[in-house]
C-alpha cells in the first residue's frame, strides 16, 4: 500500500543528464539500514554533499526553490543500474513523487510504481521545455496530462501502473484474489513439468 497518487503541483527540479544510475540516486554506502526508511539523507549523496558532508550549493536540490520540489526532471534511462528499490524509497522519503524523463530503466519504473512515485515519460523536447519554464508543473495522473504555464502535454502510462498508483493499491492483495486460479494452474503445471517443483527433494 502506497500513498495514492492523483494530482501533484510543484516546481520541478532539473537534473537533465542521461543515465542517472541508482548508484547516483543513492550510493550503496548510504544504504545503512536493513529496512526501507532512513534513506532520504543518502539521496544523491555523491552530488548533494561536498567533503565533510556539507551541502553542495551547486546541486539542484540544494538550490532555493527546489529544496522542496516534489517533481524531478531528468535525462533518458533514469534509474539504470542496480535494482535497489532504495532509490525509490529515498526519493519518496525526500518528498519527490514524480520523475519526468524521456525513458526509465525498466526495473526502476516497476519499483517506482510500487513505491508510489510516478515515472512519467515525455519526449526529450517536452522535458527540456518544462525545465526552461520557471513555473509550477501540474501533473494530473487520471487525465494523463502535464501542464506548466502555457505548456501542456499528454502522457502515456499503462493501465495497470496507473490503477496501482491512483489507488495506492497493494499488488499482493490484488493477486491473492486470484489464489484459486493460481492453484489450479499449478495443479496442471505440476503434471506437465514436475521438474519445476522442488518440494519433494
Amino acid at each position, binding site marked *: 500500500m502506497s500513498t495514492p497518487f492523483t494530482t501533484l503541483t510543484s516546481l520541478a527540479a532539473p537534473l537533465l543528464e542521461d543515465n542517472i544510475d541508482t548508484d547516483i540516486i543513492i550510493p550503496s554506502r548510504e544504504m545503512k539500514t536493513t529496512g526501507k526508511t532512513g534513506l532520504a539523507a543518502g539521496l544523491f549523496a555523491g552530488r548533494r554533499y561536498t567533503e565533510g558532508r556539507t551541502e553542495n550549493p551547486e546541486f539542484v536540490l540544494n538550490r532555493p526553490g527546489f529544496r522542496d520540489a516534489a517533481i524531478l526532471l531528468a535525462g533518458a534511462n533514469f534509474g539504470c543500474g542496480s535494482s535497489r528499490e532504495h532509490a525509490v524509497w529515498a526519493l519518496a522519503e525526500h518528498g519527490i513523487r514524480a520523475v519526468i524523463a524521456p525513458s526509465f530503466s525498466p*526495473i526502476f519504473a516497476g*519499483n517506482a510504481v510500487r513505491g508510489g512515485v510516478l515515472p512519467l515519460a515525455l519526449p526529450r523536447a517536452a522535458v527540456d521545455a518544462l525545465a526552461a519554464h520557471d513555473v509550477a508543473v501540474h501533473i494530473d495522473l487520471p487525465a494523463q496530462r502535464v501542464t506548466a504555464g502555457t505548456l501542456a502535454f499528454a502522457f502515456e502510462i499503462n493501465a495497470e501502473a496507473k*490503477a496501482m498508483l491512483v489507488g495506492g493499491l497493494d499488488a499482493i492483495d490484488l*493477486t491473492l484474489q486470484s489464489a484459486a486460479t493460481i492453484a489450479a*494452474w499449478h495443479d496442471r503445471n505440476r503434471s506437465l513439468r514436475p521438474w*519445476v517443483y522442488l518440494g519433494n*527433494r
Partner: protein
Amino acid sequence: MPSLFDKLWAAHAIAETPGGATIIAIDRIFLHERTGAAALNSLAAAGRGVADPARAFVAMDHIVDTRPGRTDATTMPGGTAFITETRAAAHAAGLTVFDIGDPDQGIVHVVSPELGIVLPGLTLVAPDSHSCTQGAVGALAWGIGSTEAEHALATGTLRIDRPPTMRVTFDGTLRPGVTAKDMALALIARHGAAGGQGHAIEFAGSAVTALPMEARMTLCNMATEFAAFSAVIAPDDTTFAWLRGRRYAPAGALWDRALAEWRQLPGDADAAFDREISIDAAGIAPMVSWGTSPAQSVPLDGVVPADAAPGSLAYMGLHPGQPLAGLAIDGAFIGSCTNSRLSDLQRAAAIVAGRHVANGVRAIVVPGSSAVKRAAEAEGLDAVFTAAGFEWRESGCSMCFFAGGESFGAGQRVISSTNRNFESRQGPGTRTHIASPEVVAASAIAGRISAP
C-alpha cells in the same frame, strides 16, 4: 512462429489482470543479504508467508568479506546486521541459504547455474539487476526490486506487462582474444546504454551459438547495462551437456522428459521480433571503457572520443583524443557476476603465469563461487595468481561495488572485469575501466591498459 520468449511467456502466463498485465508464474526466486532482510521482514510484518519455500534461495554474496578467514564481520560499517537479519528471516521462512562457510556459497548468478537451480524453460527473478545473466541457459530471468520480491515470495507470481522483444544477432567468427565481454561492450557502445529499453532480448547468431556456457552468461549478464528487461539464449547441446548432473537439475527419467521439452524451446525460424539488431562478430575488437557508462567504451587501440561528455571526462581525468592503451593503472580487479567463473580465471591465469604484477599496482582475484575457488585451486590457479602478485580471495561480489568497506581509493585508476564503470561505483572518486579478464590480467602485468 513463436519465438523462444513467446514460448517461455505462454508457458508461465496464468491470467490477465484488468489493467492488461499478466500474472506470470515464477519458478525460482533468489535473494541476497544486501536487500533480503528488507523483503523478508516486510513480508513477515504483513503476516504473509512464502508460497513455496523449496523454490526460494538466498545467496550471501553482496557485502560478505572476501578476505581469507572471514566471519559475519564486514568491511562495510554495519554490514553484519544485513547478514544476520537476512539469515534469520530466511531460516524462519524455510528458504535454502548458501551461507558464509557453506561449500555452495557464492555470487547468486554463479551459484544458481552451477547448482542447476536455473534451468531451460524456467522463470527466475531476484532483487538484483544482473539476474538476466541466468537467461543464458534458456530461462526467462530478470531483476526486480524488493517489493516485487515480496510479491514473488508471497504469491509465486509477478504481475507484469508483456515486454517488447528484440533479437540481437552476432553472426561470424570472433577474432582471437575477443570475448563475450567485448561482444556486450561493443553492442552497448554502438547502440547506447538505453538501446535495449525494456525489451526481452534474445541473443542469437553463429557467434553466440559458438560460445561456451560460461561466456553466454557473461553476454547475458551485460543486458541490464543495455536497459533490457531480460536476455535469453536458445538452449542447445552446449547447455544440456553443461547442466546435466548438476544437483538441482532433474535426473534419470525426469531428465529425459525435461530434455524432450527443452529441445522444443528454441524459437521458430520465422519468429517475429519487435526490433532486430545485427552485429558482425568478426568486426569486434577487445574493448575497454573510458567513461562512466558502459556505453562509453571503445576498442582497446582507440582513443577518448572528441565529443566525450565533459562530466565523464572530468571524473575519469581524461581528455578527448587520449589513447586508452598505455594509460597507467593503480589497480586491477578480476571478479563479479560478469567474469569470475572458472573459465574466466583460467584465461586470466594463462596470461599472468610466470610474470609479475607491475610495481605499485594492487591486483585482486575474487572467484565467483566457493566451488569456482575450489576448482581453480585444484588446478593450481591460485598459486599462479599469488606468485604473480595477485591477492586470492574468498568468493563474493567484493569490490565490484563500494558499500562503505573496501575501495581502491579516490582518484585511483582501476581496470576491472566487472560490469559497471559508474561514478564512485568502486568507491568515491575511483576511476573504473571495464574490460575482459584477459585485458585486466595483461594490464595488471604491464601497469598500463594493455592488450593480452
